[in-house]
């Protein structure tokens, strides 16, 4: 049978506030365990939470950027469950009245724009981390477990999508778009490896043209774009197989096992927690006045979609280039800086999408960690324009700049890469090449014009690539087609 895939994503984004959501402890990542804690975030008896206004502002910002209604009245709720990394025995979250509702974001799929609905965005606190060690073993042979509460109380946004996603690819595009928006807003660093952006996916299948949704499963632990795609592909196939064999899908929570590349059952609906949500009595309801919302709206930066459109209209870039360059705020900023400093827009785009992306990928670096500065690229362009180096040599220079951090001009001098543009000098070499290859000359003159490359190659080889390629071309053409020597 043919099925339609229905996917909804729940994305958890760690907010980039300096302090935790209900106390003033730092949110910095990677500190010694339990050094960023206080009585409040470790759930001492008698402590009370107080909302960090910055977290509220970030949630509102995100809501506005995703076209949501911002609730003038919302509140926190307690989600009750026992776990050692949850110091109070409940997580402060939002349930009945979330801060943002009814929004949407746009993704581009096969050059078509598609809207994905946002059901809600709510604020909550992160839990700590359990660390299970194999050593040192206890006397009875057991192992110790440790709890690190540095992360407990770090503000999170949970962004819940409508079941509008129809394929793993759409899911990835949606995730990428969310990440771009959050990064543009500066509310989340989007680092999936460090867990600042995490995702659970709800998946179901239904026969094409059936209205009702099928039974869904929830997949947890998707911490990279690749895993989102792989896990969904696996799960869709798994469900398809069951349905084709007239089996029943069990409503359950499944865990993505990235090593084996499969999803595994974690708990069924019957085993699901009863979280016993109820309004958090320790926090007053949140009231947000329209003036503040308007102020935040005014302060929103240019968002990916707008920037993409502007890159097309302002720089004359193809959609593809604009889409890629605006996928990350830092990349777009890097691009615009290079153009502002004099780079030709399309040329800058080509260099970024070609050489720069390749080098970054090789080093597994993000654009923020890029050792090359936009100014260095712009300066290299000036050398090309002046004819100091050829486009071909520029590739060598570019890589050298990236690897050493030195400027183009310095590298060109140091390595003697200045282009030979002296007609006499080139002519000598051209003559030499023609003289040494009489057979090829004859064939060329007999009409085999594609041999031009052969001669160019020889000239370049002799000049170590430094000869002005345009001049080489012209001279060779002239000499080969001209009178017999």
């Amino acid at each position, binding site marked *: 049978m043919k099925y339609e895939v229905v996917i909804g994503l729940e994305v958890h984004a760690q907010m980039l506030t300096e302090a935790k959501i209900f106390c003033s402890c730092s949110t910095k990542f990677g500190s010694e365990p339990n050094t960023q804690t206080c009585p409040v975030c470790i759930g001492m*008896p*008698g402590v009370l939470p*107080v909302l960090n206004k910055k977290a509220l502002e970030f949630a509102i910002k995100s809501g506005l950027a995703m076209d949501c209604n911002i609730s003038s009245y919302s509140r926190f709720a307690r989600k*009750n469950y026992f776990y*050692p990394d949850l110091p109070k025995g409940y997580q402060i979250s939002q349930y009945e009245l979330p801060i943002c509702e009814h929004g949407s974001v746009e993704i581009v799929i096969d050059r078509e724009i598609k809207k994905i609905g946002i059901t809600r965005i709510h604020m909550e606190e992160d839990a700590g981390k359990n660390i299970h060690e194999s050593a040192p073993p206890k006397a009875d042979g057991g192992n110790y477990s440790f709890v690190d509460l540095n992360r407990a109380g770090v503000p999170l946004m949970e962004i819940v999508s409508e079941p509008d996603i129809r394929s793993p690819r759409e899911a990835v595009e949606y995730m990428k778009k969310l990440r771009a928006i959050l990064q543009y807003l500066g509310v989340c660093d989007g680092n999936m490896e460090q867990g600042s952006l995490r995702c659970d996916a709800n998946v179901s299948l239904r026969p094409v043209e059936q209205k009702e949704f099928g039974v869904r499963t929830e997949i947890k632990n998707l911490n990279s774009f690749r895993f989102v795609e792989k896990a969904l592909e696996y799960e869709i196939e798994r469900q398809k197989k069951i349905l084709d064999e007239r089996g029943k899908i069990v409503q359950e929570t499944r865990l993505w096992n990235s090593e084996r590349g499969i999803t595994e059952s974690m708990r069924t609906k019957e085993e699901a927690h009863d979280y016993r949500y109820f309004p958090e*009595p320790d926090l007053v309801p949140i009231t947000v006045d329209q003036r503040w919302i308007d102020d935040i709206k005014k302060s929103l930066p240019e968002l990916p979609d707008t920037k993409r459109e502007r890159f097309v209209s302002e720089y004359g870039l193809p959609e593809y280039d604009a889409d890629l360059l605006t996928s990350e705020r830092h990349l777009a900023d890097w691009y615009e800086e290079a153009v502002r400093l004099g780079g030709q827009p399309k040329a800058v785009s080509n260099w970024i999408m070609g050489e720069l992306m390749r080098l970054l990928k090789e080093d597994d670096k993000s654009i923020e960690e890029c050792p090359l500065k936009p100014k260095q690229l712009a300066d290299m362009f000036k050398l090309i324009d002046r004819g100091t180096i050829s486009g071909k040599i520029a590739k060598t220079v570019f890589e050298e700049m990236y690897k050493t951090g030195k400027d183009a001009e310095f590298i060109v001098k140091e390595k003697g890469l200045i282009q030979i543009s002296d007609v006499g000098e080139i002519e000598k070499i051209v003559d030499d090449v023609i003289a040494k290859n009489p057979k090829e000359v004859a064939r060329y003159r007999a009409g085999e014009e594609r041999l031009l490359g052969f001669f160019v190659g020889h000239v370049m080889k002799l000049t170590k690539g430094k000869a002005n390629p345009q001049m080489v071309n012209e001279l060779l053409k002239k000499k080969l087609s001209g009178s017999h020597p």
Partner: protein
Amino acid sequence: MKLHALTISEIRDLLDKKEISVKDLVKSIYERIETVDNRVKAFVTTTEEKALKMADEVQAKINEETRKKEFLLGIPLAIKDNICTKGILTTCSSKILSNFIPPYESTVTSRLINQGYILIGKTNMDEFAMGSSTENSGFHITRNPWDLERIPGGSSGGSAAAVASDECIAALGSDTGGSIRQPAAFCGIVGLKPTYGRVSRYGLVAFASSLDQIGPITKNVRDTAIVMNTISGHDPYDSTSAPLPMPDFTAALGKDIKGLKLGVPKEYFIEGMEKEVEVLVKEAIKKLEALGAIPVEISLSHTGYAVATYYILATSEASSNLARYDGVKYGFRAGGKDLMDIYMNTRAQGFGAEIKRRIMLGTYALSSGYYEAYYKKAQQVRTLIKQDFEKAFQEVDIIVTPISPTAAFKVGEKTADPLQMYLSDIFTISVNLAGVPGISIPCGFTTKNLPVGLQLIGRHFDEESILKVAYAYEQATEWHTRRPNL
């Protein structure tokens, strides 16, 4: 002169005039504790060494001629053992916190420290403030100083007994459903539950967050006003504390109560009430009338639902508030073969029977499928009860009622029947549900020489009116001057 028998304002005067020293005062208190506490058993922890050291520091401040003396400078107070005191054992009278030493100071005690108060000790209570007799303490039962066969009330029974038996000058308690007012009544002293949001809860170990409130337990009304001046007011660490300007509560004392409308709710004079108690309360109302107040019969029509509503909401919140006691981070931990086993053993061994009963009740009320019928419905009734008070306060200025249908009962009398115990809170619970302030003042003694309390209830954030009326009544009577014979 028996220094331990003095009130705050008397001591302030004597200290400032240098007629007594802080050290003599503190010594007098501990001598008194030495003499009576083996019978009363009001304390879980006493802090004599620290108190004596503190006495020297405080004396030096008093001796600074030009210094403006804080009102509580050098005043020995006892603190209920569910209020966190940095570096000092805070147990909630529970085995599960029997080794818990807070690494931080509660807001109320921080404010007392800024004043230069002297901590005498931490007082016994019903475990986690759940109870009306202090019999639910995980450690020992506190006795009523008026009759050692009887309970002192609860849950702030230790604080009330300590004040009544002169083991401290005044104390702090906490009140979730009557836990300050009822023991104050049973021990013949004054206890105020402030408006919800008037006093910071930061550092008060939570029982039911939407109902809990810290308040003073003192020998007279003036002392209550004095303590309120220090502990009240907005706290940035408690977002439920109200950002309102703070009055001087002592300024209300001594003002005329002529023409003041006194609401007498008919639902508070019921079958099953001890005749003697009813008579004493009605006489007190007559006394207030004689002082110029005008009694008006009113109706608080949802009173009958208050106990049921309370026991759903308070237990629901408690079931969540007490989840943190899992043996992982602090407090008592029982062994076990795996995580679940450690959780279960810790909580099974660490909590007393009443705590477990309430956690189960609350967990049930919040469970999926029952939430609507119990928790949500109770919230709706709570709103109705609040509206009862709002409506009444359109007609009257304060409301006057009994505190309890009986005087102090005997140890063991109600422990077999939790429901009977719950029902003894019938007159105090609505005040917590509505969030309004209520005070208990002594209004007479039964033939068995047991004190009876009168409750005065005010509008939200209008503690001044009830203090004014309470003071006027106190000035016109002598009940507050009586002390138990220990």
